[in-house]
């Protein structure tokens, strides 16, 4: 089973847990409708579409409203710690959550206590907390974009905002950044790096790269990294090998982008709609 933990940009949105489905362009969870704009709703929507194509159960979500003060994130964190046993043998993807090292460590400790721990995937704010905590290597997969990879590669930076310039300058040398992230134990067991060239790496070894179909304008579109992580999570939860799942997700995301004939103004909901066709065409 895939479980996705994240936030929605609405301060009044309560903590909700349960299976998620799509109703038009909105997510539906426990009777709540959430527009799919970007962030965790985009990740969940991509995972739902992928699960449909693969014939699997829809993802289970843990969501709360948060606009940056962290209150919703803390509700999500608390729920995970208090219900840790229910995540045994699942695939657990952490997403847009307020980076909080103390809560991160509590979650890690609760999950480590399980005899059959979940597959752990982290992206966005929770990945920042995992790196800051020093326990990045406890994760099975991180899915950074190139800017976030530079942050992982900078052993001193507590957040991408503080990534040092001489490291940020190495955008064109992603393998160097990967090597540096592993050298300082700031990477998960595997990395799916999202960018103009997508790469999959483990322990400094780059397993594959994808650069076509090329779709440069997708860099400007909010949520296109979230859809890759959502698809990869759903495929991993279906039992697919992680390397193959990430390859399929990265490739399908490019094809889905091309199907929308995108401009820098295209919104991610259009990509989500194209995912079934993109996956079917692989």
């Amino acid at each position, binding site marked *: 089973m895939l479980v996705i933990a994240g936030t929605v940009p609405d301060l009044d949105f309560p903590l909700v847990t349960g299976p998620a489905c799509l109703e038009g362009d909105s997510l539906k969870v426990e009777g709540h409708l959430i527009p799919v704009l970007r962030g965790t709703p985009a990740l969940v929507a991509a995972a739902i579409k992928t699960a449909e194509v693969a014939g699997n159960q829809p993802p289970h979500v843990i969501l709360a409203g*948060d*606009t940056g003060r962290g209150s919703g994130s803390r509700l999500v964190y608390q729920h995970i710690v208090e219900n840790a046993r229910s995540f045994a043998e699942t695939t657990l993807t952490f997403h*847009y959550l307020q*980076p909080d090292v103390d809560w991160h460590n509590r979650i890690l400790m609760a999950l480590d206590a399980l005899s059959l721990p979940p597959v752990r995937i982290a992206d966005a704010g929770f990945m920042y907390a995992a790196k800051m905590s020093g326990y990045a290597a406890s994760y099975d997969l991180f899915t950074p974009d190139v800017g976030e990879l530079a942050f992982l590669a900078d052993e001193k930076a507590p957040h991408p905002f503080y990534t040092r310039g001489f490291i940020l300058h190495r955008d064109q040398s992603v393998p160097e950044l990967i090597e540096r992230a592993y050298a300082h134990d700031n990477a998960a067991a595997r990395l799916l790096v999202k960018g103009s060239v997508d790469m999959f790496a483990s322990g400094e070894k780059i397993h594959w790269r994808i650069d076509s179909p090329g779709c440069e304008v997708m*860099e400007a579109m909010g949520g296109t*990294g979230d859809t890759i992580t959502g698809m990869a999570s759903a495929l991993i939860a279906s039992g697919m090998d992680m390397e193959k799942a990430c390859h399929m997700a990265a490739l399908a995301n490019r094809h889905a982008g091309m199907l929308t004939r995108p401009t820098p103004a295209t919104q991610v909901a259009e990509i989500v709609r194209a995912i079934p066709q993109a996956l079917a065409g692989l």
Partner: protein
Amino acid sequence: MFFKKLFGRKKAKASRADRGMLLFDHTSDVIRAENLLKAEGWTIKVMGPPPEIQRGCDLVVEFPLMEQMRILETLKSAKVHPVDVVPVTGPLLSPVDLFHTKDFGEYLMVRAANMKITIEKKSRMIVNISGGGCPDVPFLADQLTGKILEEAPQPREIGHTLCGYALQLAYEEIKRQCL
């Protein structure tokens, strides 16, 4: 056993890695900042500065680094001005000051750290915001997308986190390039 498993791991970093320090010239400013931020509900602590800090008075305010932008806006509105703000684990680090600009023809994108803002050149409408990982990013994107650059709320007015702060820098840079 669980503690051993977690804390026995290699290279655990201090749990204060997500904290920052506000530096002030005068102790009286430290006290004002402390009262103000506590009254607003933030978890903060007044303490002595680490040896690397060569400026400011003998006290600093430790605060949740992720919420740097909202905290600075709160202090600014009360006319309490820190002389510097630094991460606890890297007192010599400074915020990102590199911008990456990409011209898509009819559209222009500027990136600061992990945040990107894209406008349509002709209308100056913000058409997309991407990147980031803190929970105010989807909220900021929702509030800014579809608005004309000069009429959109500034990220610092409604954002909270360091991702919001990076977006503010990208916003200022794209505005500088367009005006």
